[in-house]
């Protein structure tokens, strides 16, 4: 049976432009998010082994880290590490999401002026949201 030939181009023939960089960025940020989720779950499992916590606590510590309730929050280095990890996660989510939304908007709004407004608006949104998130996470 004849198999269909894959419609893919090797990297060397795709060119290295802005679109290519953003394509790689989207994939790498997605992989980074899976990595952070895995790290959060492993961290929760380590805590559970030391404290006998249940699955609900593990998931809550992994995805909604509140160091006041987490017994490992007493260690300064863990507090700083978790805050840095959550900030990195938020920045990656924000970058991935903002780029994705812009890509969708670009598909449905074809005008040059509209696209420029959306681009500027989404960059402003990202700056404001990231600033709020970093402040809240670090000050908590």
């Amino acid at each position, binding site marked *: 049976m004849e198999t269909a030939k*894959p419609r893919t181009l090797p990297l060397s023939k795709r060119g290295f432009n802005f679109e290519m960089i953003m394509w790689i960025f989207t*994939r790498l940020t997605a992989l980074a998010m899976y990595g952070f989720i895995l790290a959060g779950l492993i961290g929760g499992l380590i805590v559970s082994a030391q404290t006998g916590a249940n699955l609900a606590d593990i998931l809550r510590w992994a995805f909604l880290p509140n160091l006041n309730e987490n017994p490992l929050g007493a260690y300064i280095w863990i507090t700083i590490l978790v805050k840095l990890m959550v900030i990195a996660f938020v920045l990656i989510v*924000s970058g991935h999401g903002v780029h994705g939304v812009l890509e969708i908007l670009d598909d449905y709004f*074809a005008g040059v002026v509209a696209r420029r407004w959306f681009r500027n608006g989404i960059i402003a949104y990202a700056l404001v949201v990231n600033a709020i998130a970093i402040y809240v996470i670090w000050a908590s």
Partner: protein
Amino acid sequence: MGLKRNVGLAVALRYKGKTPFWSYILHRIGGSALFTFFTIYIMALAGVDFASGILGNWLFQIFSLSFGLFHIINGLRITILDLFPNLIRRQREAIWLEWAVFLPLYGFMLFVVFRSAVGG
């Protein structure tokens, strides 16, 4: 100059792309749902009361989690197929595998949210 495709919603929905096309549409809806969730989550973190109320609403939780979970699992499939292009010829099988992973997780998620909603 901007690209003009002039494809209306009705025409787009009749497009015979089948499962890959519907995955593409659901992925976009899921991305938008997660973007909305992210915005409301940051607002709740910043202390906006109505944002905390929305986050606690079980209908919003089901909406965000349904599309968000699909976006996460479908995104993993896309990333794997992008990084290993030889697998693209098996993309329909990959989509069925994706649904096989999604449905049990989705069922468990619905159970947890409904149980919390009715105070269980």
